[in-house]
């Protein structure tokens, strides 16, 4: 395992840049911007090394750095990437320079602070994507929150204070519950094995009893569902987007939202597979509702940023749906759709930023007929719009197609998969409806607003921002194979670990007949004194145990009924050639 220095370096670079910026005099704004841009570009180039040294055929974590940090608590500074996180890391380092470039003239006040906040944010995001230690993850997760709070609250629009506080409160609500669950897992693992550690790879092995899993999963899931955002936890997003400056919106939609799905993949599902399995129908339902609901509500918006914000609710619903398909196409589609959403939605926000810089409004009614005045902008805007609408040949299609395909063939993982997927697929139509509505209102028709008569097309700097995005959108759409191929080993491993753990759990849970959730957990390692008296497929409930007469009756728990646990790893995922 060579190159263990690479990921820490990647994290350190933006921080070094931020430190350097502190030395730059306040008035030297151009120089400060230059420093920040160069820093982010260097970070991007270094992140390309991650890609270069990454072995796409390997399933495990690579470029792992495992340094001691807080030995007393068993915290280690452990970073690494696999086929899932590498694309999110690259997405982050790819977007940050573009965003800094796009904000070149939009940010006028406290330029230096803005740049510092942005670089710290980048370090936080990279840290959270690469963290393999729960403690490090949590620290990074919180590190991201602070600069984002300032970016919205200081450089935002009129209602920025309301929006930033809403953003922080929503996020904190989830984070704090997650923190409690993290400690629970930490303590439980320590009690069970005598080793106190936050190392994710070790914690994956922990078999928690069911009830404990439920609580912990819900705590994690809430934190991530807010981030996704899953309906009905999404209302912070439109406010945050509308008030945030363009650059903030881009990073928020392009990268930060991905932590929701990523958190499910990296933490919530592998740590608590059984709970995840049990809650899957509800999560899928919320995801599908989000797809349709987000699209419908997007259509009702007059503010372009709000419209795009709701479109994110819809798009990330596809990611959630694909993830819960628990097979290779579904999960790969989900990850791919995240990356694609990072490009297309960033493009949309950047496009509306271009308009906002010129006209200081984002209301659909204020525009119309801009195509004639801004042909270059029109082309860019059209491509990102179509990419977002999922036109085949552009990036958006591949992810959503795979996610739908995976979900449709999910089998037992999603009860009623066919119907849910069909409803979700209607989001494809709705996507075209609201996106084309937006595009038409802005670009087509006669110029009705006199202030638009002298609007200028994009300048060289703005074109420079768009070109890499558009290339990415085309490339991912036309040749997605290398990305999917690099994901596949990690995804297959994820699925098989999940299913093995689920099957093990189904076979062992009856031994610790849970009088209370924790009473059982206290002795998980104790071997059975008697052979099991119940078939493993019939999960016991608290009620069944306390009234032994009922034991013969079928489980009455509504969640469990009708959903037999899978016998072992099976299904689509394992059938890869």
């Amino acid at each position, binding site marked *: 395992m060579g190159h263990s220095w690479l990921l820490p370096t990647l994290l350190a670079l933006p921080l070094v840049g931020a430190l350097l910026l502190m030395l730059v005099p306040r008035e030297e704004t151009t120089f400060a911007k230059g420093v920040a841009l160069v820093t982010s570009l260097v970070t991007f180039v270094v992140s390309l090394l991650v890609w270069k040294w990454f072995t796409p055929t390997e399933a495990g974590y690579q470029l792992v750095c495992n340094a001691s940090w807080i030995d007393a608590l068993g915290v280690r500074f452990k970073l690494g990437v696999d086929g899932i996180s590498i694309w999110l890391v690259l997405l982050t380092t790819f977007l940050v320079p573009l965003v800094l470039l796009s904000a070149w003239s939009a940010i006028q006040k406290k330029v230096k602070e803005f740049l510092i906040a942005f670089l710290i944010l980048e370090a936080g995001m990279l840290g959270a994507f690469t963290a393999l230690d729960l403690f490090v993850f949590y620290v990074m997760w919180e590190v991201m929150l602070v600069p984002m709070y300032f970016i919205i609250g200081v450089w935002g629009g009129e209602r920025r204070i309301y929006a930033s506080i809403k953003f922080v409160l929503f996020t904190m609500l989830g984070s704090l519950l997650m923190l409690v669950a993290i400690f629970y897992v930490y303590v439980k693992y320590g009690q069970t094995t005598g080793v106190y550690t936050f190392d994710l790879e070790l914690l994956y092995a922990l078999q928690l009893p069911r009830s404990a899993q439920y609580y912990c999963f819900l705590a994690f899931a809430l934190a991530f569902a807010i981030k996704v955002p899953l309906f009905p936890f999404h209302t912070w997003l439109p406010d945050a987007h509308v008030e945030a400056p363009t650059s903030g919106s881009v990073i928020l939609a392009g990268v930060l939202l991905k932590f929701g799905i990523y958190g499910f993949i990296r933490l919530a599902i592998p740590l608590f597979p059984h709970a995840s399995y049990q809650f899957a129908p509800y999560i899928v339902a919320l995801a599908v509702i989000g797809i349709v609901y987000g699209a*419908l509500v997007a259509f009702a918006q007059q503010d372009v940023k709000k419209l795009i914000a709701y479109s994110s609710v819809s798009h990330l619903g596809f990611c959630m749906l694909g993830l819960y398909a628990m097979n290779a196409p579904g999960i790969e589609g989900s990850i791919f759709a995240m990356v694609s959403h990072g490009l297309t939605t960033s493009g949309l926000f950047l496009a509306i930023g271009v308009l906002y810089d010129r006209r200081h409004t984002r209301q659909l009614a204020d525009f119309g007929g801009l195509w004639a005045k801004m042909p270059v902008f029109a082309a860019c805007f059209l491509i990102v719009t179509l990419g977002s609408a999922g036109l085949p040949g552009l990036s958006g299609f591949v992810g959503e197609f795979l996610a739908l395909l995976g979900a449709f063939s999910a089998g037992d993982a999603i009860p009623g998969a*066919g119907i849910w997927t069909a409803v979700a697929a209607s989001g494809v139509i709705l996507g075209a*409806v609201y996106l084309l509505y937006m595009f038409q209102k802005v670009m087509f*028709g*006669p110029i009705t607003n006199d202030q638009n008569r002298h609007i200028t097309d994009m300048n060289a700097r703005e074109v420079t921002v768009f070109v890499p995005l558009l290339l990415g959108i085309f490339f991912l759409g036309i040749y*997605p194979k290398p990305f999917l191929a690099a994901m*596949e080993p990690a995804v297959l491993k994820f699925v098989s670990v999940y299913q093995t753990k689920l099957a093990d759990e189904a076979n062992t849970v009856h031994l610790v007949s849970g009088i209370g959730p924790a009473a059982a957990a*206290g002795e998980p390692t104790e071997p059975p004194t008697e052979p099991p008296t119940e078939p493993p497929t019939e999960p016991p409930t608290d009620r069944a145990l306390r009234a*032994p007469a009922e034991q013969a009756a079928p489980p009455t728990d509504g969640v469990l009924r009708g959903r037999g646990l899978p016998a072992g790893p099976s299904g689509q995922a394992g059938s890869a050639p």
Partner: protein
Amino acid sequence: MPTLATSPTDWPLHWIVLLPLLGAAINLLVGRKLARRTVHLIACGSVLAALLLSLSAVVGSLYPLWKASQTGGAAPELRDLFYTWIQSGSLRVEMAFLLDPLSAVMILTITFVGFLIHVYSTGYMAHDPRPAAYFGYLNLFTAAMLLLVLGDSLPVMFIGWEGVGLCSYLLIGFWFDKEKYANAGRKAFIVNRIGDFGFLLGILLLYANVGAVDYAGLEASLAQLVGANSPLLTSYAGTGLSLTFFAGLFLFVGACGKSAQIPLYVWLPDAMAGPTPVSALIHAATMVTAGVYMVARLGFLFLTTPEVMMIIAAVGATTAIVAAVIGFAQTDIKKVLAYSTVSQLGFMFAAVGCGAFTAGVFHLFTHAFFKAGLFLAAGSVMHAMGDRTEIMGMGGLRKKIPITHATFFIYCLAIAGVVPFAGFFSKDEILLGAYVAQLPYWPEWFGRAIWAVLAVTALFTAFYMWRLYFLVFAGESRADEATQRQIHESPATMTGPLVVLAIGAVLLGFLGLPHIGGLPNAFAAWLSGTFGAWQGTVLPEAHASTGTTITLMAIALASALIGIGAAWALYRNGPGALVQRLVVVLAPLHRWVANKFYVDELYDLLIIRPFRLLAKLLFAVVDRVFIDTLFVNGTGWVTRTFGRLARRAQNGDVQRYFVAMLLGVVGIVSFATCGKPRFEATTAGGTAMRFVADVGAGPGANGAKVEWDFTGDGKIDATGADVTWSFPAPGSHAVTLRVEDGLFREVKQLKRVITVAAVVLEAAAAPAEGAVN
């Protein structure tokens, strides 16, 4: 990455797609800086190159294979595996292309008619300020259409499918400064997307159940299912209907959207907002026939589900006649042609629905020529009339634009189905195919009913087309002086394509001669390379008796002539007095038809308004009021209120703090410890007893240590909350339960004597109700 030819069936087909794509890329990226001539050259040149390449592939490579197949060789197919597009799990989608007789017909039609229309456009759009964009889109369209027909799997077809939809959107709204045009473009795209939703579901359904998305794979898997008598084909998911019924139905929904069939036809008439050559290429000759192509391509799938075939035939016939009726009352030259297109597409669907794939594709082929010609001629008329499209204000153009007139005359004969023009042969074959159609489970009368509807439609077609002809070209001009003065024939770039297409409309029918007296049907023979495998078993089309064939032909010809005669009687000198009277007498009916049966209004009322309302309502009620006000800000309010109340407790009174603290400590301890331990014993067979301890529900129970002493010797015999113990003999035994609290490590004991009976075991433990709670 061009593939090297490694076998005789490998052919770099991707270049046929890439050439127009390259043209599009150049024109769209740098075209604005190029001279108009250069733009024209790139656009026409790239399509011409694609045409030549297609010819070379078809004539040079496919034709020999086809010849060999006629004498028992393998199916004539050229393949090109360009690269692997998507691979994930067991799904593998190749960017692969397939050229067989069916796609050969399609690519030759697309590139040939497409090339003519490109040339025509250089004249028609000579003064447009944005030639690069126009020709870029046109090239892009050509590439997407070629991809659609050459693609070797459903997902690749879907790329082309959406691509042509996009170009259609862009070209309908090409003059975007007119709100109406932009709306028409959006309507087209969205209605198409509704169809695409069906297409997508069809793909998902097929992949999830048979695990293939490429044509060969699908065909093989379906054959396997049929062979194995799979329950999927008798009752899919307990519905009593076959898997292919659902898949076929969903795919057909996609076809309906793209090919403007009921109920998704409403976008096509509006699409006439685009430049006229676009209407000719996209909305007459090529894109709208994609649905027919899809059904023909997947014929092996549709043939397994006669129910869907029946639906296709019925939808096709209904669309044909409804659109023809609407065509009666239209007064806009392009609208008449648009409804005519919808109606003719209905013919094609009726054909493929009846299993007459060859007839459907043949009509697709001839229709592409005469309908593209009609549109281009209409464009030439509009050119002459200063972009007017209202036919009531035309008339007498016969002498003034002779070439346009002559070609239009030929196209009208062709579409009306007059012998020996192209439409006669293809329409006749459809009518015959419907008449003799007899698929499994079809009622006997069904094919004849379809035939009857189509025969009446043929009469209507002749009528409304010749009404159009007479109103535009015959009689005296009804235009104003100024317009009359500027009427002129179009330049050669426009009339040239008209003439070429007219030659096609005259001659092409002879490719598919009727089955009388051993006349050769070259077209059917050629397509047997694709359809042969399935058609022989199902289709009686070619086996109809000569008598039937001739009778049907006579009926078709008679209806065409009656239609033309009626149009002549009513409209030869413009809308005559009789027409005026009829319009007055039949006013309600006329209004009904002229307004297209108010379908647009109906959709608006039933779908669009409720949709908008729902969107607004969800936002206002669910998002704003419910989630944000009640849920989010409500939480904030509750927090603030509690904060305000709690502030009162912080009044600095130390005594009160102390009391509160004491109460708290007592509360915590009593809540947190385990409580009094209890257990319950039940028999576990013989002298074995099962013991279940209840250590209480407080946090102290968390990690509580549970130990048992069954022998009364003070030693621990078992640990755990649920244990089973075998006593050596029946009788009374003292059992001690010892529980160590997990939080405070406080130990509590419970000692009970239980009686173990040999046969009937009675647990004498703590009271049962206490144990349960």
